[in-house]
């Protein structure tokens, strides 16, 4: 018989303490508070007799306006994700397959450089391009292609253009990592067996890069639906999205409970996507079939 040794704390485990504290204090605690607030009639700090209620959520369900805002937010997120994918995939593929080190460095710089400029600055830059008297409309009019300026701003198109520009690097970097790990010889094997380069891409590279497509899309979508500055500036308050609505509820209406409930909706949308992502990933990678 041997005496059971007392459980010892591995000293290495202490290293994760700072990040654990950080997450607990600044991530789980605020989200927990937000969840609590969304189910209370008022702020328990200033009001003594608060009660648990579902009225904030009921308000969203009954008023078509809020459902409309949620749907607009999701729609902008989806279009931004799709456009980022279409713009980002070819770029990521190029970056992953380029042989020249200099070429790779230049591409990486081109992708990262916009991220060094503030979102506000970049959004204003887009406004000078997209407005009625902006660069694009002026050029098109002077070329005689159009007579009245195109409506490129203060609508969803403008917001999506601005968001794609800001979030496409996230898509590119995520995809480059995944595509770079796909063995080039797999494409060659496909071509060798009679697949055209395009067919080889569809049959081999695309399905194998699906994890990257999913991860990049998830990232861009989550960022796009929670974006605030770009939808305000390029939407000019004509388009209402969830983050703008939340801000209004807090700063103008002082309705923290309702704002918290809207925040929870945003969180649930993102979380359910993460769960769906893990599920789909498990299916496509075929891990379930392995013992």
């Amino acid at each position, binding site marked *: 018989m041997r005496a059971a040794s007392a459980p010892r704390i591995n000293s290495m485990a202490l290293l994760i303490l700072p990040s654990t504290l950080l997450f607990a204090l600044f991530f789980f605690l605020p989200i927990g508070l937000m969840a609590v607030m969304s189910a209370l009639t008022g702020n328990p700090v200033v009001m003594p007799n608060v009660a648990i209620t579902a009225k904030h959520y009921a308000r969203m369900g009954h008023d078509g306006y809020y459902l409309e805002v949620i749907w607009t937010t999701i729609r902008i997120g989806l279009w931004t994700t799709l456009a980022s994918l279409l713009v980002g995939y070819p770029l990521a593929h190029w970056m992953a397959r380029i042989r020249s080190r200099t070429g790779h460095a230049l591409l990486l710089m081109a992708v990262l450089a916009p991220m060094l400029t503030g979102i506000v600055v970049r959004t204003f830059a887009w406004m000078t391009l997209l407005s009625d008297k902006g660069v694009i409309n002026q050029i098109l009019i002077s070329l005689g292609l159009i007579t009245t300026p195109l409506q490129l701003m203060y609508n969803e198109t403008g917001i999506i253009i601005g968001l794609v520009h800001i979030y496409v690097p996230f898509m590119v970097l995520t995809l480059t990592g995944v595509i770079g790990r796909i063995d080039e010889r797999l494409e060659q094997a496909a*071509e060798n067996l009679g697949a055209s380069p395009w067919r080889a891409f569809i049959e081999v590279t695309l399905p194998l890069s699906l994890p990257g497509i999913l991860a990049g899309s998830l990232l861009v979508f989550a960022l796009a639906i929670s974006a605030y500055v770009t939808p305000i500036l390029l939407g000019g308050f004509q388009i209402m999205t969830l983050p703008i609505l939340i801000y209004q509820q807090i700063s103008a209406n002082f309705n923290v409970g309702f704002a918290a409930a809207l925040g929870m909706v945003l969180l649930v949308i993102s979380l359910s996507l993460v769960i769906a992502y893990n599920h789909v990933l498990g299916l496509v990678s075929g891990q379930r079939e392995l013992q």
Partner: protein
Amino acid sequence: MSAAIEIASVSKIYDGGVRAVDSVAMDIRPGEFFSLLGPSGCGKTTTLRMIAGFDSPSAGEIRVDGADITHVPAHKRDMAMVFQNYALFPHRTVAENVAFGLRMRKIDKTTIAAKVKSALAMVELSGMDDRRPAQLSGGQQQRVALARAIVISPRVLLCDEPLGALDKKLRQQMQFELKQLQKNLGVTLVFVTHDQEEALAMSDRIAVMNAGRVEQIGTPAEIYDQPRTRFVADFIGDTNIFRGQRVAIDHGSGIAVGNGLVLALPVTAAAADGDVLAVALRPEKMTVSTTDAGETQGKGSSARGTVESTNFLGGAVLYRIVLESGQRVLAQQPNSGAAPLHRPGQAITLGWRPADLVILED
């Protein structure tokens, strides 16, 4: 069905100016098992990739059955390749992997199913249809790669060190099977390897490559027994290489390799006295005996020495011998059991036939 491949002074120069392949020329005959043999970086894989169409030559032409295919894209060449790492599609089942080439050829489903079944049976993988490559052993993956290549009945089968990752026993078995399969199908097979034993065992003909150039093309026996260059003699098997000046001796000519040792040259040797030559002598072409060959001494076909080390190889014994004239040579004797092994330190006499000396180009 099988095709002839002509490689006409093909070069491949990479961006940095590196000549990976330098004016390579070879004619591969229909139905031949043709090996490209050489150390890593000799250009053998680049040559294979140019035949497959993954790399395009900087100069020269590649022709299949007389038709120039130098600029035909890979997917229109009708050649099948077995990759070094097999390059099986990890997201597809074994059957889907094998069916890929047939599917690209727009063959109807029932035919595909039948062909896949027979191809898998041919490589003894029946019943593995629904497995994924990751669930197979290295040897099984290798067979799937082979089945995927042969199922499309290609005109040419290209193999890039396909057996390199297998352990020795399995590799030997696959060598036999691959050769048998190639003969049964009658397909032209171009086989890249750095393993000289493998090349000698399997090939109809071998092209030995070094530093982007072809050193020699010939049958395994020609390559082994009549190496043309010092590189070939050195790369294929063990060999003793001597260098020296040509001199006249009693019955013909010899080569003075230093410290008074003179080796008689074969009578067919064409060279003038005074030329500096290099000659190769295979270890197993020498005899090692304890009897003093007094009367043959000085005729250039024997030398005295001392055994330095004795390596028992099982089927043969390899001796390292220091000659009286100072040179170290390898001599191999079959383990016939007729005579006891010579121990290190023992004085012996080496003998050989002048005809076994091969004159090398440097």
